[in-house]
């Protein structure tokens, strides 16, 4: 504040020159000599190029290495189409389930005070720190032939493992925290005043949620769904354990990448991989845009 007042007062030329020098001296205290700066920037750029940019570029280079026709021919294979379809179905199921859960959990956790809140949030976060392979393994131990429910499922002729339900379940496990984690801090920050006003004016709980809360958190919902969907479509380890790799039936896109790659069908493997890489890039761009919207939503509330 004091700086702004000083700025608005007109200063003589010598004063402003002295101030500029002082500012330069202060900046010098906060930065490094030019060669050091250049070395650090070069190292950072080089590292990101080798470890992040090149792997991305190589996916597309390999996918188009036999030309554009071979690329589209690989994507038009029935096996590829089946994998794309399965991936979309599984993502729709797990994103849908986690969206509903995220909204419900957000309401309970962000709008009310209760003991054990931190523990509950830690439990919701658990899947982030469980190895993908273990996320698949837990369902094999429950529903596999030797699993707790294995014999019961066989008697009733219900197929969970090596079928869509198992894949959807493992994917839901892995993507469990995304929507809830995007919504809880946002809803906490927004407080409960608007909802309380709606209730006191006679709105029902559901009306309040759909007319007051949901419009306030719509960018957060989109943000959570976006990240949840990216992970759901790209999940490999957990799905690999429960899928059974039945060709044309239980292979999602990432699993098909592995199979084609191991069969040395590199163009086909990288063609599918390029679709997933594009999904990742679109997700990142959309994420950047949404973060801008979310930041805008925050600013007026902070002041």
């Amino acid at each position, binding site marked *: 504040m004091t700086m702004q007042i000083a700025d608005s007062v007109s200063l003589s030329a010598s004063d402003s020159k002295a101030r500029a020098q002082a500012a330069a001296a202060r900046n010098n*205290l906060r930065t*490094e000599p030019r060669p050091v*700066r250049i070395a650090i920037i070069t*190292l*950072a750029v080089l*590292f990101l190029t080798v*470890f*992040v940019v*090149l*792997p991305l570029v190589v*996916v597309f280079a390999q996918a188009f290495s036999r030309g554009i026709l071979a690329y589209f021919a690989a994507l038009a294979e029935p096996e590829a189409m089946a994998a794309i379809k399965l991936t979309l179905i599984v993502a729709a199921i797990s994103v849908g389930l986690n969206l509903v859960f995220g909204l*419900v*959990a957000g*309401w*309970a*956790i962000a*709008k*009310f*005070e209760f003991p054990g809140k931190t523990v*509950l949030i830690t*439990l*919701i*976060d658990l899947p982030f*720190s*469980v*190895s*993908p*392979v*273990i996320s698949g*393994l*837990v*369902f*094999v*131990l*429950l529903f*596999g032939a030797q699993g*707790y429910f294995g014999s019961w499922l066989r008697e009733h002729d219900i197929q969970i493992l090596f079928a869509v339900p198992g894949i959807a*379940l493992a994917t839901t*496990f892995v993507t*469990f925290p995304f929507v809830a984690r995007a919504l809880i801090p946002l809803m906490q920050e927004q407080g409960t005043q608007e909802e*309380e006003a709606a*209730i006191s004016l006679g709105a029902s*709980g559901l009306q309040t*949620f759909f007319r007051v809360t949901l419009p306030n958190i719509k960018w957060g919902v989109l943000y959570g769904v976006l990240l949840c969907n990216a992970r759901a*479509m*790209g999940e*490999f*380890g957990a799905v*690999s*354990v429960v899928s059974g790799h039945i060709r044309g039936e239980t292979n999602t*896109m*990432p699993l098909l990448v*592995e199979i084609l*790659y191991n069969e040395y069908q590199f163009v086909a*493997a*990288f063609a599918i*991989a390029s679709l*997933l890489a594009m999904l*990742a890039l679109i997700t*990142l761009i959309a994420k950047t845009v949404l973060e801008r919207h979310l930041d805008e939503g925050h600013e007026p509330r902070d002041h």
Partner: protein
Amino acid sequence: MSALAARRRTLPGFGLTMGLTLSWLSVIILIPLAGLFLRSLELSPEQFWNILSSRRTLNALRVSFGLAFAAACVNLVMGSIIVWALVRYRFPGRRIFDAIVDVPFALPTAVAGVALTALFAEKGWLGAPLAALGIKVAFTPVGIFVAMIFIGIPFVVRTVQPVLQDLDPEIEEAAGSLGASRSQTIVRVILPSLAPALLTGLALAFARAVGEYGSVIFIAGNLPNVSEIAPLLIVIRLSEFRYADATAIAVVMLVVSFVIIFAVNRLQRWAQSRIPAR
């Protein structure tokens, strides 16, 4: 305080939404994880010990934990350099490189795996020049190390970046004008302020690399005792229907992850307690 609590309770639906949250959390996360621990209790301590102390298991755990730690250390150093460049300097393409840091988060692990393998294979863009120098990356433990560096880098950058951004410029200026050299200021003033974030980033990168499967198995070579990671050994034991072995290895890995979460939570609390109240 009690008035606030009372006021908050005026919104409806706490019982219903909390009930649904706890039930769904139990069905999807807690019961399946509890099943794993129950399974491991069916093993006698002796069986458990025999599985874990077998040469192949020990080597797989050593490869996973050892290389994950080494990769997390590289991430700590390179991540700090990247954060410094992104926050403190202006250079062409800075915003793009800032966005690109998140690629390892967003890129499906299987895609990262085949891409890194193609890049570092003997005929790959980077593998060929490295092979000329006599360095073999793909299908060796070095390949696992490279994949783990790839997967861990955003964790360090994204935990340290906001802390460096929020660092009060005045403390640096004070140190500088009191006669500290730039390197003294960095080591004695900036580094201690970043320490909790740096350690959190290290822990998160380590935890992710230990459990990583998709981006590693393509480039690893998967030679038992040499370049076989623990998650792959779990998958192999499952395919051999040796559920006990798979369970025992998984339980060890889970316990380590839980210890890391606990440590990270403590770190966060420590970091928060150090921020002076304004």
